[in-house]
């Protein structure tokens, strides 16, 4: 019986969804955005479907397992600084952000810091230990998170939860287009097009200018944690950006779905030939000089960027600047190819001394 029910729901869902215009379909890895007559269908990072219906309008019938979300959403809880930075980009941060999973000390944005003090924005607990009562009390229209573990709990609370991470889209294109996936929730598709166009233009401009680069500096992107090393895989967006910027990613044999640990031997080998190194940790963690890095692991003293001085760390603001991806990309390009892109402005990175 359940099987037939499933078939019928699937058939109806197919009929409804197939009424969407094929031309408006956008796919970003697992994320999908489909513009339909009177509503938008969005698929999140784990393939769950959401029917975004403008407030005051009726949702379509027979939507199967999909969840209805009325747009524009007015109260949002966001786990990731990336999702919060797009709210800044859309100019709606002050209106919609009601909950975060980082404490005041972890933010640079003055409005968020003040709002966490005056209660306009609520710290709902660290991502690993959410206070669900507080979350419920905050009455969000939607929760954006990378943590799939909270889906069952929030489903029971009838709070739509959107998974914002996916293993199938780590690259630069996904990073550029991601804004198009979040925009329909705020009815900011036009703004997202502008952002996306700006990002794409920057990437193409960087690619074009760096194509003529004579020497292609070799770059590694990772960090040492005492005796261990974490690095970005070659399919990460930053690794792809290194290539676009006229550099070579030195760890091009490392493939993964997120940053991953590699052997000290491999890191040492890459470090011997690398010209530039980017680290993960901001100065806030205490690792803000080359000396500190060398104390972390003596092998750091042997790597070339350490000797030449080309080691860069992200500033705190970097994590809140996804809506300024074009600026970030230009700064990375200028660090890798200063002869082409000019001296870096060091707005998002610092050169370790």
């Amino acid at each position, binding site marked *: 019986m359940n099987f037939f029910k499933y078939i019928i729901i699937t058939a109806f869902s197919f009929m409804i969804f197939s009424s969407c215009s094929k031309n408006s379909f956008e796919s970003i890895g697992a994320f999908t955005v489909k513009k339909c007559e009177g509503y938008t269908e969005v698929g999140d990072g784990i393939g769950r479907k959401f029917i975004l219906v403008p407030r005051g309008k009726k949702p379509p019938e027979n939507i199967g397992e999909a969840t209805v979300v009325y747009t524009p959403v007015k109260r949002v809880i966001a786990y990731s600084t990336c999702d919060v930075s797009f709210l800044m980009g859309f100019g709606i941060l002050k209106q919609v952000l009601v909950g975060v999973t*980082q404490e005041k000390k*972890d933010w640079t944005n003055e409005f968020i810091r003040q709002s966490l003090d005056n209660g306009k924005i609520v710290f709902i607990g*660290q*991502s*690993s*230990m959410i206070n669900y009562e507080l979350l419920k009390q905050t009455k969000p229209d939607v929760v954006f998170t990378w943590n799939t573990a909270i889906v069952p709990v929030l489903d029971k609370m009838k709070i739509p939860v959107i998974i914002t991470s996916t293993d199938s889209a780590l690259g630069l294109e996904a990073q550029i287009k991601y804004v198009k996936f979040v925009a329909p929730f705020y009815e900011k598709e036009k703004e997202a097009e502008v952002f996306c166009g700006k990002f794409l233009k920057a990437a193409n401009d960087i690619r074009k200018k760096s194509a003529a680069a004579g020497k292609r500096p070799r770059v590694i992107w990772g960090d040492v*944690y*005492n*005796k*261990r090393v*974490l690095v970005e895989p070659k399919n990460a967006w930053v690794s792809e950006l290194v290539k676009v910027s006229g550099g070579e990613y030195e*760890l091009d*044999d*490392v493939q*993964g779905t997120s940053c*991953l*640990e*590699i*052997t*000290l*031997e*491999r890191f*040492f*080998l890459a470090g*011997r030939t690398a010209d530039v190194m980017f680290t*993960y*940790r*901001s100065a*806030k*963690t*205490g*690792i*803000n000089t080359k000396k*500190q890095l060398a*104390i*972390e*692991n*003596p*092998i750091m003293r*042997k790597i070339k960027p350490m000797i030449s001085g080309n080691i860069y760390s992200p500033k705190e603001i970097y994590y809140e600047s996804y809506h300024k991806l074009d600026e970030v990309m230009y700064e990375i390009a200028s660090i890798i190819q200063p002869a082409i892109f000019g001296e870096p402005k060091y707005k998002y990175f610092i050169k370790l001394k």
Partner: protein
Amino acid sequence: MNQIVVKENKRYMYFLPVFLVLALAVASINLFNGAIDLDLEKIMSIITGGVPSDSPESFILLNIRIPRIVASLMGGGLLAVSGLLMQICFRNPIVGPYILGISSGATLSVGIVMLSTLSLGFAGISPYMTVFASFAGAFTVMMVIIGVAARMRNIISLLLIGIMLGYITSAVTSILVAFANAQKIKGFILWGNGSFSGFTWSEVNILLALGGVILVVTFLFSKPLNAFLLGEEYAQSMGVNIKRFRLGIVLFACALAALVTAFAGPIGFIGMAVPHMSRILLRTQNNRVLIPSCMLLGGLITCICDLIARTVFSPAELPLSSITAIFGAPVVIALLLKRRYSL
């Protein structure tokens, strides 16, 4: 005791050399494989100084690969002997070196250092501070256990107190993690996975010297350990001071576990599974045989696990504790199902 001597078989005469040869063979495979594959000629050339000492091959072999191999052989062996001592002390086959909270104590103090150094006013952390913190944490728990062991008559109560200490330290660590900066948690999680990566020669020397001394002393106690197996009353009749002896076993077991954990982080299952494997393979309870067997087999298995961890998905490195667990858990399950021997 006579019972043990009568039942003694000579399997160890074959198995111990086999373990030794296999350990050396696995160490050799480790020696050849890595980010740079080295052949015998190249290795000999590096060792004899035929290759400049500042060449990447030379640096990798002499300063990264060989210390790691020696550390995994020695560390695995020490953990296995520590587990053996714990199993004898508590006459419980499912205890291991970390049962008394040694690992949790080390993890807590490393957590304090790694997750809250900034709030304590330090700019960063020296790796030596991590090692020191780890040893201090393990040693503090060990001293509490020893203090309790000196007063306790009931060995099960001591075991339970050890487990409770483990819970307390783990709980405090969880609270630390809850309030820690997300960027710092990464390093702490990596440490908690355990690894022989990044061992320096000075650390290897400490492991060899201190571990070696404790190992020799433990081996010298194998006769009273055998007597202890046959019951406290029997051991007492053989002239063993039970209270002091039990204290000694706990001290040595904890010290061995603390030593390895200080440098490599917590590495699970080796300490629990290897003593059982030794007993099954050698079909003996004689600790004079089991101590060297655990040392060799523990080193061999840890070295294999380390090889798997760093080469299977090379250049990605897998968490060593996951590999040892995948290897160790089925052994423990099989033992529980079959119950082919008893302690």
